[in-house]
């Protein structure tokens, strides 16, 4: 079997790195001897579909190492060829051909040619041959093309085309005339890949005498390929091919493809070509011409092209605007501005989108007006345009317009201050936050939350103190909270509020500032909340409960629990209990502590919503105590569903430590649940536990 290997007398050491089947590399230095090579190849010989690929992988590794070290390759190739000539299985030969495609040389051509002549093995031979970079391959393929037919011949021609074998012109010429239309089509496509004058000539002549409409289509596709291939070397010839394919008697798809070719080869005349094309009646030509504006060279007179446009129907006008936008040349913004007045909504939206890229400060007023006075997608696009419009004076123009424009537009401009954002607008926003219009005030507060810095906190607190409606109060609270949290030193974040609080007499105002303290969660303010929760004034107590509930950790739990237990006011009790339940999750209590806290809360809870909230919290604590608490609720029709979900959440974590208890509960779920998905999952887990 190993004709040449027999002459090898030296033991060769190869360091092999075997990739595992999962692709992760494991370094393994192994000694490869002649015997080992023979053994590996012999193992491959016996391979067939369905057997382990281990021997194949080992062989591939051997080939790879030999290839990387440029050792043993001729011998290995020879051994592979022997396998191909043997009565090895098709699967083995297919594998060998794949390997030969990577390392095969001229030496393989003769054997592969034999396989090529057999219809059963022609494909695997071509697999190897196509990748072997040796002219001998082309010679053999050319000869084989004349001796074969049907599928084998098609494969050979395809491979010759793929290899761009210029010397195959004769083969292709003959094959184009083949009675089998698929052979003919393959030959035409192969010629189209060559990109030579000779190929162009052949295809052009063939087009004139094509045997069918189908063949014409194939030839035109090949001519397009030829022109594209030739573009860099012979632009003039490429251009003349495109001209021929752009003629009106050609199919639409070919004409539009040729139009692209013309645009990219015409240079300075490309604009003229587009101007002519958009005058055609056919929508496809117009559409393509418009899209190809993107391809015009830099410096082309695009304005002239735009000016020459006929009246476009809306769909095409949208395409034009998209093309102008993609070019990104601000000097064409006027085209988009003009289209803002279209009767068609999609055109107006496209114009707004184009202005995001092309527009400047001059467009602020118009876009803001659109944002204020349109609806739906047009309004959203206008807003987006206002947020993203760029240019040196855009921000200044927005701020200037805010002062003079009407209420609706003002709201949109103020909104954009936060979205862009404009950091220099704080003073203006502090002023508009006192506007007569409620919506203007609210939008100003929103923007201030984004742009204002801590030094503005006194002014922002003033705004909160003077806020009238509950919506405004909430917005002002958010703003003060956001800006306070911009102070790097966490312990100082509530200082501005704490400084103001003692001087406030109105309990409502006092309360609204207290609530802000909760969201900030600065430790300094906790004593104030603790004191306030015991205030004689109900409004202050409620605000302190809310603030404590928002606290970022469990510290206020001990303040809320007594309220939940003892307050005479039902609202206070409920709010305090909800706050307490929420804080359990945020607390640093251990699992047992959290379960105990939930249990206390459960005992206090009078309403079903709080109980559900507790079960949800318990479902995240993987302990037997939480499992048991939920198990107790399986008989409670109001809480059964939450208990089931909670037990299912815990089942994996507790399967090993508490299988018996879990089994009892899962069995109960299987028997009583109304949720089929839960039943199925519970049953699966039960099966696994059993």
């Amino acid at each position, binding site marked *: 079997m190993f004709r040449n290997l027999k002459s090898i007398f030296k033991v060769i050491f190869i360091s092999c790195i075997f990739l595992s089947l*999962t692709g*992760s*590399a494991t370094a393994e230095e192994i000694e490869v001897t002649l015997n080992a090579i023979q053994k590996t190849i012999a193992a491959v010989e016996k391979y067939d579909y369905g057997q382990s690929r281990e021997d194949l992988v080992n062989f591939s590794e051997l080939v790879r190492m030999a290839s990387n070290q440029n050792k043993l390759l001729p011998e290995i190739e020879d051994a592979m060829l022997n396998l191909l000539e043997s009565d090895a299985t098709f699967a083995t030969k297919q594998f060998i051909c794949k390997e030969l495609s990577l390392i095969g040389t001229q030496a393989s051509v003769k054997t592969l040619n034999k396989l090529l002549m057999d219809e059963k093995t022609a494909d695997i031979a071509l697999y190897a041959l196509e990748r072997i970079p040796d002219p001998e391959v082309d010679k053999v393929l050319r000869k084989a093309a004349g001796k074969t037919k049907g599928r084998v011949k098609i494969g050979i021609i395809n491979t010759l085309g793929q290899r761009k074998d210029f010397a195959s012109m004769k083969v292709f010429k003959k094959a184009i005339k083949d009675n089998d239309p698929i052979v003919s089509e393959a030959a035409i*496509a192969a010629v189209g890949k060559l990109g030579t004058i000779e190929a162009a000539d052949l295809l052009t002549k063939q087009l004139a005498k094509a045997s069918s409409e189908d063949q014409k*289509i194939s030839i035109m596709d090949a001519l397009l390929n030829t022109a594209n291939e030739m573009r860099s070397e012979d632009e003039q010839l490429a251009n003349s091919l495109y001209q021929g394919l752009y003629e009106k008697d050609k199919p639409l798809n070919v004409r539009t*493809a040729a139009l692209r070719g013309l645009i990219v080869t015409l240079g300075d005349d490309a604009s003229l070509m587009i101007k002519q094309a958009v005058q055609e009646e056919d929508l*496809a030509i117009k*559409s*393509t011409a418009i899209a190809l504006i993107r391809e015009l060279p830099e410096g082309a007179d695009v304005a002239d092209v735009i000016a020459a446009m006929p009246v476009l129907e809306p*769909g095409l006008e949208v395409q034009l605007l998209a093309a102008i936008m993609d070019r990104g040349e601000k000097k064409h913004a006027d085209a988009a501005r003009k289209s803002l007045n279209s009767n068609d909504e999609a055109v107006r939206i496209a114009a707004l989108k184009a202005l995001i890229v092309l527009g400047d400060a001059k467009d602020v007023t118009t876009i803001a007006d659109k944002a204020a006075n349109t609806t739906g997608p047009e309004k959203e696009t206008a807003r987006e345009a206002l947020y993203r419009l760029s240019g040196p004076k855009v921000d200044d123009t927005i701020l200037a317009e805010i002062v003079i424009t009407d209420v609706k537009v003002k709201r949109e401009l103020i909104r954009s201050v936060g979205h862009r954002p404009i950091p220099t607008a704080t003073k203006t926003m502090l002023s508009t936050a006192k506007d007569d219009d409620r919506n203007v005030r609210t939008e100003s507060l929103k923007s201030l939350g984004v742009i204002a810095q801590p030094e503005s906190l006194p002014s922002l607190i003033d705004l909160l103190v003077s806020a009238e409606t509950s919506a405004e109060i909430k917005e002002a609270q958010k703003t003060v909270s956001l800006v306070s949290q911009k102070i790097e030193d966490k312990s100082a974040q509530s200082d501005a509020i704490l400084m103001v609080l003692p001087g406030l007499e109105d309990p409502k105002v006092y309360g609204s500032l207290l609530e802000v303290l909760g969201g900030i969660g600065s430790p300094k303010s906790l004593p104030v909340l603790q004191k306030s929760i015991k205030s004689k004034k109900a409004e202050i107590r409620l605000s302190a409960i809310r603030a404590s509930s928002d606290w970022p950790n469990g510290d206020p739990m001990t303040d809320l629990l007594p309220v939940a237990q003892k307050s005479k006011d039902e609202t206070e009790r409920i709010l305090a209990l909800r706050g307490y339940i929420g804080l359990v999750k945020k607390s640093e209590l251990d699992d047992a502590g959290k379960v105990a806290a939930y249990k206390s809360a459960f005992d206090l809870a009078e309403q079903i919503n709080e109980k559900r909230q507790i079960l949800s919290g318990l479902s995240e604590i993987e302990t037997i105590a939480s499992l048991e608490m939920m198990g107790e609720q399986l008989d409670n029709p109001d809480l059964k569903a939450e208990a089931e979900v909670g037990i299912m959440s815990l089942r994996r974590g507790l399967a090993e430590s508490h299988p018996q208890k879990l089994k009892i509960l899962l069995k109960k779920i299987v028997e009583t649940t109304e949720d089929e998905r839960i039943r199925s999952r519970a049953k699966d887990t039960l099966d696994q536990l059993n």
Partner: protein
Amino acid sequence: MRKISNKTSRRSFLKLTAAALTAPYIIPASALGKNGFIAPSDRINIGVIGVGKQGSGHVWGFLRMPETQVLAICDVDAKKLQRSMDAAAEYAESNGFKSNCVGYNDYREILARPDIDAVCIGTPDHWHAIMTIQAVKTGKDIYSEKPMTLTIAEGQRMVEAVRKYNRVFQTGSQQRSSYGFRHACELIRNGYIGEIQKVHVHIQTGFIPHPVLCELGVEPKPEELDWDLWLGPAPWRPYNSIIAPPIEWGGWPEWRNYRDYSGGGMTDWGAHHFDIAQWGLGMDESGPSEIIPPNGKDMEKLTYIYENGVTMTMDIEGNGIDFIGTEGRIFINRSELKSWPEHIVDEQIKPHEIHLYESNNHKLDWINSIKNRTKPICDVAIGASSCNVCHLGNIAIQMGRKLNWNPDMQQFIGDMEANRHISRAIRSPWRL
């Protein structure tokens, strides 16, 4: 029983091409009617090719879009075809009209229909290139599942073909149409974490990371399956249900594991995450210049080096992309976006900064691009280069040595052996 075409599939490409060349360009009415209604005549007519686990979802997606109507469905498995045909019919009935969708065994029947404007390709990877190249010749716009290609050469041919015929092509790497991924990339491109030094791409997957030889045994072919057409351009082998499972199998088919049909887990999740890595690095339509496979010693992971010095590694554990810059770090996957320092992810992108292409719905972005004749968010050239990153990794792993790549020329530099991996022969009579 729904309408299923019984026409023979053994046709010349020519006949189909000629018949379909009258396919009109889409100039739909630009505005929606009342309540978002679009007249059927103004909708984009879709053919869905390949309706297995992924493709059947696409049928649903396009059925529900007001901008589209599904007029044709194709699959080489008659039962899978029937399932999607039934879905189309049920959808039509539940919305008060009669389905006019026709089913086909051979996708060329769909390409031959001049009334089909666009096709969605949901087949295994070894079919994407051939179907795309044929589809653009007949004037169809294309949505192709990721990974876009099986080889680097396929990507080159697909880009040429799509450009040649001025078609709109969307690659199904839909993470680009998600706010989180876009925001992460915008932050990175605008320097919020400084200059990027490293990217760690984690692509844990249920498939074999790098594809292997297919060793599966011989099984009786199910009656409903056209196995020869399933294989198409791939090397012949006998049927096995692991590769092309029957309809009863609920999981993902495992053709992804095998080199003849796919690039393994590498091109499965890699087509998503390397795509985002390239987006974040501003390397769309480009790629790395060096690829170094792991060697079990000093090089633990598959490593890419870009011309600008950025290194990118591939990890088969975890899921997501980790960008490491001189001033911070951003990690993104489908469920989380995190940054170090934390505040970075909350930053807004300012008007004068780089804004990346915005899409919030991958299919709708394709439809809008068809209407506007623009490149969609994951255009063919982007899909090809992102997929090339995966292929380059697989080739380096297969060859077991460092490779030098010229991303502009799309060639290995002075390396004839490696260049053999760029393309591979396909089974006759198919061709690229």
